[in-house]
């Protein structure tokens, strides 16, 4: 018996739940504006989220997937990426998307059942929301191949959840990216639950970061409620990728404080105490405390920031609510670049029916 390979999985945290630094903070944390911007972004995500859940409850939005508790993981990713990089999100990473320029009313349009939400203002090359779990990991790998082939200094980032690490597509993407040294970062937001399935039933793997070992690529676990840790490690992974050294897998450890979606009732399957315990670790408190202790933040700033966010959210809701339904022709006009002759008649019929009210 001979040991031929060995691996270690590291965990990284900069700020503990009370906002106390556990390590020397990365350079960007020296910049107060940078910290404030991340905090503001997390707060915006949370306020937006609350509003969206309300819209759903009052029948003004379809099923909606809350991001409550994930704000640091999402904003950390957004803050680490460059605009020319490419995001392949899953379905609840608003913090990352908003940072990149997607508009709140666009997110609402999407969950409101309107494809125009994915024709967003954010980076036009970013992938839209992705519901079929883990399939977007392959898109990120493919995007990275495109950049590698063209010699562009760009990276792709995919995001999926703990449940998503059970899908074949996830592993195939990691393995492919490893084999080709693709400039891509695979983010796994481990919020402990995949709808009602807890992590222990999902896998025997102690960490999700160690799934990187199967692909021969680096993997690391970071505190997903610590936006500084998330941003730092995503930045490092992106630098590595940009240098041509290949992909990284990053697991961010967080918790889904909400139901899975508004169609779910998490009280059916998980104990209230678990949620209460997790709530104490949530990401906004710790960054706020850290900044407050250092005089970078105070109640006044908090109020102003909150007010601004509320106003922005309200404007977005208004814009969403006032967006008229797309015409029925939209179904046909984006199917192919050019509508095949056989579909012309169907399109006409649809128009006639919509006009005549028959459907």
């Amino acid at each position, binding site marked *: 018996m001979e040991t031929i390979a060995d691996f270690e999985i590291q965990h990284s945290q900069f700020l503990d739940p009370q906002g106390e630094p556990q390590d020397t903070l990365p350079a960007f944390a020296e910049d107060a504006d940078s910290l404030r911007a991340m905090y503001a972004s997390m707060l915006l995500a949370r306020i937006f989220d609350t509003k969206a859940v309300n819209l759903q409850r009052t029948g003004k939005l*379809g*099923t909606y997937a809350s991001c409550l508790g994930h704000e640091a993981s999402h904003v950390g990713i957004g803050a680490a990426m460059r605009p020319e990089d490419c995001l392949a999100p899953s*379905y609840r990473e608003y913090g990352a998307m908003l940072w990149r320029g997607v508009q709140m009313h666009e997110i609402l349009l*999407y*969950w*409101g*059942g*309107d*494809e125009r939400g994915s024709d967003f203002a954010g980076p036009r090359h970013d992938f839209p*929301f992705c*519901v*079929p*779990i883990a399939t977007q990991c392959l898109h990120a790998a493919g995007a990275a191949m495109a950049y590698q082939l063209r010699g562009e200094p760009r990276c792709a980032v995919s995001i999926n959840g703990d*449940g*998503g690490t*059970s*899908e*074949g*597509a996830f592993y195939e993407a990691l393995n492919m990216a490893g084999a080709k040294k693709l400039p891509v970062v695979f983010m796994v937001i481990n919020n402990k639950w*995949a*709808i*009602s*399935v807890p992590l222990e*039933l*999902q*896998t025997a793997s102690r960490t999700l970061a160690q799934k990187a070992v199967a692909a021969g690529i680096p993997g690391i676990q970071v505190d997903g409620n610590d936006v500084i840790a998330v941003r730092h490690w995503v930045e490092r992974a992106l630098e590595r990728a940009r240098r041509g050294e290949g992909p990284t897998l990053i697991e961010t450890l967080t918790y889904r404080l909400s139901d899975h979606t508004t*169609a*779910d009732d998490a009280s*059916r*399957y998980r104990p209230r105490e678990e949620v209460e315990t997790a709530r104490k670790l949530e990401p906004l408190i710790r960054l706020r405390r850290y900044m407050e202790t250092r005089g970078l933040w105070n109640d006044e700033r908090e109020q102003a920031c909150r007010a601004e966010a509320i106003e922005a959210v309200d404007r977005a809701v208004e814009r969403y609510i006032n967006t008229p*339904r*797309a015409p*029925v022709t*939209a*179904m*046909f006009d984006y*199917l192919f670049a050019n509508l095949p002759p*056989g*579909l012309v008649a*169907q399109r006409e019929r*649809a128009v006639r*029916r*919509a006009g005549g*009210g*028959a*459907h």
Partner: protein
Amino acid sequence: MATVTLIEAVTMALAHEMARDERVIVLGEDVGVNGGVFRATAGLQQRFGAERVQDTPLAEAMIAGVSVGMAAQGMRPVAEIQFEGFVFPAVDQIVNHAARLRTRTRGRLQCPMVLRVPYGGGIHAPEHHSDSPEAMFAHMPGIRVVIPSSPARAYGLLLAAIRDPDPVIFFEPKRIYRLQKQEVPDTGEALPLDVCYTLREGDDVTVVTWGAMTYETLKAADQLAGEGVSCEVIDVATLSPLDAETLIESVEKTGRLVIVHEAPQSFGGGAEIAAVVAEHALYSLRTPIRRVAGYDTIMPLFRLESEYMPGVARVIEGIRETLED
């Protein structure tokens, strides 16, 4: 006697068969403690234990593949795919294995498994939650595609599917999961597979449909009856293998055929029905066959879905046009 919705009938059939046959195992994503995202397996884990009602990791190829493995070794897995949009990773195991295990081994191994797949639109669901891909599966030899359209048929056909020694994809029309209640006695009596169900007899036109569209079709038939039009409404129930005989006989009687389905029209289930009639009952056809179906486009997100899906008005339009041809 129980008065149940379609989804409650599904649960009832699962419970009945699990109690009767310990080889029956329920598995899938969130089917355990949570009882399924639609609650189809509600209460089953409490009653039969976590071994017989297993939450699986999130992987549909895996769910189908382990079902094949279990079925080959004497179990009767009934797996749930959460929504039809997520059945595609399982296609490989269905086509290349489930459907052909008996053929490949000349009967040495068999594959008595059921894949339950909620499908269809009309519930204002998110992206990838409203498709109707049944025809893709109907083209694969070696599996049955079964689709109930009432609580009683959900109960009887699901029992039959579980007991069948061959694989069945059981598409459940999610839009009518809770639409209507029906008295369904829990007798354990299965309904026959491989046959169509004539829901309403008529003379002027044969209207063939399945799944949620049976409701629209029956309503249309009702409405037209007021105008003196007599529709024969047939629920295909087992889409594949298709009971062509019943369809042909009906068209021989009525001379007219309208097919109604939610899936895109082209290469959909209606195409095969049109084809068998054009082959075997052409001389009985007094007017062209007509399909009332989804457009050949991607099922839109829900703000436009009602424009996409054929409703009562479109079914009536289709029948009227056929009668006027």
